[in-house]
Structures are given as C-alpha cells and as structure tokens.
C-alpha cells in the first residue's frame, strides 16, 4: 500500500532532521535528545517497513528497540547527573 511508503518517507525525513540536530547540537543534551528521538523513530520505521515488505512478523525488533533504547538513554543521563559514573571528574564540557 502506498501509505506505508509515504509514512516511511516521512519518518526518514524526520530522522534526517534529528540527525542534523545531533550534529549541530550546541549542548550534549541536545545530542542525547536527538539520539533518543532517532531511536523512537527507528522503532516506527521498523514497524512500517515490516508491513511494507509484507512480512510483519519482525516486530520483535521494534520491541527490542523500544526497551533497550531506554536503557542507553538512562545510562547516559546517569553519567551526566553524577558527573561520571563515579563522580571523580569535573563536569563534562558541553561543547564539542
């Protein structure tokens, strides 16, 4: 169905925009945010692509992403909040 293709293209554009933000992003938090957003969009794209290819039994993947992406984000934020995972270093610099 054509709508799947349309949606997939919309998602791709959205990913591209988020990636631009990730590359430009002034602060590190921007990059985390866009990485997280790209993760969510990947979940969507996997689902849509499964239907596009006519074999929608691959949603396990989307599930994995939905669960694991969260862990990655949390780990990163933990790292930020407590300085480092331990807190021996000074605050990580924001700018690249």
């Amino acid at each position, binding site marked *: 169905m054509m709508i799947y293709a*349309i949606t997939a293209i919309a998602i791709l554009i*959205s990913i591209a925009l988020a990636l631009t933000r990730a590359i430009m992003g002034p602060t590190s*938090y921007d990059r985390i945010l866009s990485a997280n957003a790209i993760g969510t969009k990947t979940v969507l794209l996997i689902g849509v692509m499964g239907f596009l290819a006519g074999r929608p039994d691959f949603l396990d993947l989307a599930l994995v992403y939905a669960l694991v992406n969260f862990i990655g984000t949390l780990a990163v934020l933990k790292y930020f909040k407590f300085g480092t995972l331990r807190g021996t270093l000074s605050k990580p610099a924001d700018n690249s």
Partner: protein
Amino acid sequence: MDMILDIATWVLLLAGSVLLLITGFGLLRLPDLYTRIHAGGMADTLATFLIFVGLSFQSGFSLVSVKLLLVIVFIFFTSPTASYALAQASFVAGLKPKLDGFGARERAKEDA
C-alpha cells in the same frame, strides 16, 4: 468493512507522519533545549501511538497486533520517562531555559 479499516489506517498513518515531520522540524528549529524536549518527547509518543494503531488495523487480530500493542505500551512508558530524565538532568546541570518571552518581560518590569 475492509474499506473502513483501510481509510482508518490511511488517516492514522497520515496524521502520524505529519506529527513526525512536526517533531523533526521542532527538533531542528526550536530555540533551546527544553522546547526541543517538548517537541521530541510529546509529538513522538503520539505519532508512535497513531502509526502503530493504524498498522494494527491492517494486521487484524493476531500475534502481530499484540506485539504492536506491546510496543505502544512500552513507548508510552519509556519515552516520557526518558524525556523527563533528560530535562531533569540538564536542569540539575544548570542549563537555564531561554526566557525571552513572558518571563523576560516580567523581570524587566521588576528591574525597572
């Protein structure tokens, strides 16, 4: 019946796509981090919801639709949590929101 489901799918997926585009532009164009979190966190979740519900109309009631529902539930829990943690962490780190609208005017008044 099929017709109705198809139309529903079309509508939902289109709405989801539009929301996703809005998210993308929001991520790119909004001025500071907190507004970007706003764009990324909320519209994304709703778009996921719309698109996956639309897809599950197509799949009928099967293992696939159950999985779709599970994904929706997980995203529904994790995505706002991640946004929350992100906003909170950045706030703790001392990143101040940009207040050039309402708040700035108030402060200017106080100063005067």
